[in-house]
């Protein structure tokens, strides 16, 4: 079993999901509650990374991070090293790629919360932030969990982008999905099966924990 890859993947997926939640919650909130006309445009743009094949998206990200792009040069001048082929680069690329999986279900859930409850919260002196944290968010938990699960699982399974931007460096950017891919490529089916099974088992545990917990704590709260 490739423990190095498993550990790397767990770190990557956890970090990416966390970052995605931090980005998606306010973004989804803005998309749903903003009165501006063009929010739906932003919504569409956010979903775009989805339609590109991951390897191609990875290729463009690679170009953007490379020394030929201003962003890449700026980063290199700042940190002394290219973003590509580093863990940080991988995180950024994954965040980019999985963003719609987090934003979409969360925004959908926000839109469904009875807005009178937000009004009640405001009359009780709650700031927008407090209303969000104590009313909108808990009542959208189903959607937020869906977003988190989708983006976590998707990051675990992500492959094309990681391969392209990460360069398959053991311990740095070789995630478990790449490790399995390598095994399959090398026709080492047995090892691939083993790792895939372990991955499935691990993911099943994580998912069961998430869904089980949800069932207990907030599934009973209705929404009116």
């Amino acid at each position, binding site marked *: 079993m490739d423990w190095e890859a498993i550990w790397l993947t767990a770190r990557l997926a956890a970090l990416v999901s966390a970052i995605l939640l931090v980005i998606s919650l306010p973004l989804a909130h803005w998309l749903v509650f903003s009165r501006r006309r063009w929010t739906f445009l932003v919504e569409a743009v956010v979903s775009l990374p989805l339609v590109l094949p991951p390897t191609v998206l990875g290729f463009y990200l690679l170009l953007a991070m490379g020394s030929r792009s201003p962003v890449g040069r700026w980063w290199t001048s700042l940190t002394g090293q290219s973003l*590509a082929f580093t863990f940080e680069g991988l995180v950024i690329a994954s965040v980019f790629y999985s963003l719609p999986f987090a934003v979409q279900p969360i925004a959908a859930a926000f839109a469904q919360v009875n807005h009178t409850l937000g009004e009640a919260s405001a009359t009780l002196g709650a700031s927008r932030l407090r209303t969000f944290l104590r009313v909108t968010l808990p009542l959208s938990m189903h959607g937020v969990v869906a977003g988190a699960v989708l983006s976590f699982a998707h990051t675990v399974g992500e492959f094309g982008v990681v391969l392209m931007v990460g360069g398959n460096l053991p311990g740095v950017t070789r995630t478990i999905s790449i490790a399995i891919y390598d095994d399959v490529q090398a026709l080492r089916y047995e090892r691939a099966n083993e790792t895939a099974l372990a991955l499935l088992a691990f993911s099943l545990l994580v998912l069961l924990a998430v869904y089980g917990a949800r069932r207990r704590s907030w599934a009973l709260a209705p929404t009116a």
Partner: protein
Amino acid sequence: AASDLQTALPALVARFEQATGIRVRVTYGSSGNFSAQIQNGAPFDVFLSADVDYPRQLVAARHADAASLYEYATGRMVLWTRKDSGIDVTRGLAVLGDARVRRLAIANPVHAPYGRAAVAALERAGLFDAAKPKLVLGENISQTAQLVDSGNAQAGIIALSLALGPALRASGTYLEIPADAHPPIRQAAVVLSASKNRDAATRFLAYLRSAEAQATLRRFGFAPAR
């Protein structure tokens, strides 16, 4: 390193490490991907490509040392099928006429050297037009092998190195396609300009030239470079 090296390279690396004490980490993949990554600063030291074009382009773009460019082997191609398919590959490419061969897997000629060679071989045998409706394309030579090994395609043109590998040796039979039936699959290596371990990289390429390394490559199904 190119995917077709997956069987041979571990043995080479083990010997090299034993001899020099230098640790080598290998990443396999598509040569096209590597080429793109190297142009964008991938921290590799040596690039073992499945053809000579990618290394040449890298040299031209000053991402690799012109002096280090070395053709380390020539790929050999076989027509492969599963033993349980009942197809007799000893008849050579002519088996494509067999009705049981509904699908023939080759690597994608657009970017895989083995794919280009397979197309050339079919053309020279005058079979390409007949084969064309039956062709399915693998992304690289390993995937091509999987298409056949899983029983979805009945025959495929793959690298000899794979056919000799532990996974396929037991399950299939093959017939080598003569080297003169297609342009040679010239595989070249270079040391990359961005390498931080240039010395070790150079030594590894030097080792590849050694008789021992060349013998190993031969054992795993590669022909010597011409």
